[in-house]
């Protein structure tokens, strides 16, 4: 963004009506009172030229400056200050969760907390990650990055992760460790590290204060953490903190360099190396395939939801099976008896938090939109382009739901066969109704 500069001489000439060059700099007045006492408006002197060269008169109260077409664009987001720490006085290590391989909201809060702890000092906030393909640490205000993914591949192996963290501890001697207090990931690792540090401290005779778990606030040099039985604990900041979501505001003013630092192997004593040759106590045997219909609807990661716009219910169930999605429904579909009550999404049903939510034939009542407020990606399939669900959706497809679901199943190689028995069944049912 280019900087808009003022010419002080021109400003002075513009303010002073008696200045010899006043007319050169003065913008023509757009409103004046004529000799007859009538207010005159010159529309040509009013308004500003927009980015595509068309003159616009904006009466919304914004400050209007006459500018040439293609002039400086003001961006809505203020520019972040750049901060570089070359010689840090110490380190604050943050171990972000990185759900789906990117920085989440909880991670940004952790960095915000680290910034608060480092406030006014030369402490370098360092991100310790177990994956290499993550970006955005500059914006999340990490001064340094330490990538430990070489030692640990994608498997869940808490003991080797712990060993890597202990190595980092020996190398940097950080002021604080910050973990996300979420089980079984960050909370588990943080508690393991804290237990290891306290046992090491005991053997060396130096007592290490226990970690602060479920930290939700840092104020006046003390942390406030939630205890059991409706109590809070206010205490000095310990070395290891396990923080809840929204423990601090994420930082938006500054931008840090996120320089990579490399872990140098530390010379270990013999007993410690002996400790590492022990086989791992926890072995990952891989993910277990879970039936999506068995997952509680509030936790399901992928939901295919149906409403009044669906008429081919067999095809819908088949599509949910093919896509591997949990089934959801709008209130209308439940009231009509097409779906069980437990599958209803919305304020009167279940509040869902899927990472992908497909709404087929749901126009988006307010209650339903409240129910899907925490979904990350919403796809709407609807025949009405003006409905609220289409406005909410990240991807909206204006089409007939039944035909689209059938086409999706066909494209995925599993078309629904034997549609004839279902038709027969319907025909039979209608005969019963008639009789």
């Amino acid at each position, binding site marked *: 963004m280019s900087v808009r500069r003022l010419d002080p001489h021109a400003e002075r000439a513009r303010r002073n009506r008696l200045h010899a060059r006043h007319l050169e700099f003065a913008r023509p007045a757009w409103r004046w009172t004529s000799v007859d006492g009538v207010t005159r408006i010159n529309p040509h002197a009013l308004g500003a030229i927009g980015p595509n060269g068309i003159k616009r008169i904006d009466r919304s109260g*914004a400050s209007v400056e006459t500018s040439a077409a293609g002039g400086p664009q003001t961006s809505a987001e203020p520019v972040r200050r750049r901060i570089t720490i070359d010689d840090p006085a110490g380190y604050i290590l943050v171990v972000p969760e990185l759900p789906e391989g990117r920085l989440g909201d909880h991670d940004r809060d952790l960095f915000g907390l680290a910034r608060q702890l480092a406030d006014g000092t030369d402490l370098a906030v360092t991100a310790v990650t177990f994956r290499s393909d993550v970006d955005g640490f500059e914006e999340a205000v990490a001064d340094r990055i330490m990538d430990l993914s070489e030692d640990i591949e994608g498997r869940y192996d808490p003991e080797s992760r712990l060993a890597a963290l202990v190595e980092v501890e020996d190398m940097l001697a950080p002021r604080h460790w910050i973990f996300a207090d979420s089980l079984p990931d960050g909370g588990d690792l943080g508690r393991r590290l804290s237990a290891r540090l306290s046992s090491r401290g005991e053997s060396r005779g130096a007592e290490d204060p226990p970690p602060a778990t479920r930290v939700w606030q840092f104020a006046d040099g003390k942390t406030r953490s939630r205890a*059991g039985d409706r109590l809070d604990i206010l205490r000095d900041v310990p070395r290891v903190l396990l923080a809840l979501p929204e423990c601090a505001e994420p930082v938006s003013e500054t931008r840090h360099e996120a320089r990579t630092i490399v872990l140098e192997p530390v010379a270990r004593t013999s007993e410690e190396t002996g400790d590492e040759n022990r086989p791992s106590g926890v072995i990952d045997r891989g993910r277990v395939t879970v039936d999506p219909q068995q997952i509680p609807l509030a936790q399901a990661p992928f939901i295919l939801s149906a409403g009044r716009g669906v008429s081919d219910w067999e095809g819908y169930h088949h599509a949910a099976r093919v896509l591997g999605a949990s089934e959801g429904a709008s209130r209308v579909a439940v009231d009509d008896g097409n779906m069980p009550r437990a599958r209803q999404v919305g304020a009167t049903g279940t509040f869902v938090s899927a990472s992908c939510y497909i709404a087929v034939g749901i126009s988006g009542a307010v209650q339903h939109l409240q129910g899907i407020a925490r979904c990350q990606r919403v796809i709407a399939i609807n025949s009405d382009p003006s409905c609220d669900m289409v406005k909410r959706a990240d991807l909206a497809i204006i089409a007939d739901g039944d035909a689209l679901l059938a086409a999706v199943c066909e494209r995925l190689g599993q078309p629904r066969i034997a549609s004839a028995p279902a038709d027969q069944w319907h025909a039979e049912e209608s005969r019963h109704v008639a009789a």
Partner: protein
Amino acid sequence: MSPRESTVSPKTVALVSSGRHPVSGRAGRAREDARAVEMGLALVGAELSLGHAGDPQDASLQACLKEYLGMFHGLDDDRGGRLSLLAMSAEDDAVPRLAAWLEQSGVRLVLTGQRAECGEGSGMVGYLLAERLGWSIATGVAAIEHCDDHSVTVLQALPQGQRRRLEIRLPCLIAVDSVADAPRQSAFGPARRGRIELVTDLALASEARVDAARRDWQWEPARARPKRLKVVKSTNARDRFRAAAAKSSASNGQVLTDLTSEEAADKLIAYLRAEKVLAPGDQ
């Protein structure tokens, strides 16, 4: 999947704590600990023994522990449950006592909840015990699939209802998640028949008696956490006003119109694959 079918079962203990009802605040079983007891009963039946470190003079604690003993029903033999109460005062550190007791009694598998509902509730006890004893520990366990002499295979609960299978070497500690099988009801008769044994003869180093770290802490009634406000940081008032006045649901999504269903299906599948909802090779 029936854990009872496994022939050998290691000596198993469930560590329990006193709980509070989340709404009424009434003392009772802790929810996750009760699930741990249920898991232990399903695994070894009446062989399961319980453990707790606390003040034996506390009457409400006794009532609470009786509730756990009341879960010993519907098993093959009708022996009452046994609970070892390690005597200590409220200021003492439970970890050295529990560690000494577990070592003494030759236990190989310990089941417990993830966090206590009373007191600090940090969830650290299991980790400190595992570190002190050199055991393995797994947290967030939803079910035990198989158990033999050397290892136990469990399902770990992950976010969004997913599960991961873990094989854990014995001896180990298992912290049970709240999605594990619901605990059976506590019944009065078994609670009466169950015995609470007081354990006082533990060999402890003298300095490990008192939990010194918590003296400087200030305890206060839990405050409601402030709701996060949506702050728009913009340099000009116009943008701030716009952000405040805008409808929150308005987003700039992509709208696809006038497609045949085949084209629309292709677009949908491409989107799902790009967002990694569908696996790329899924045909």
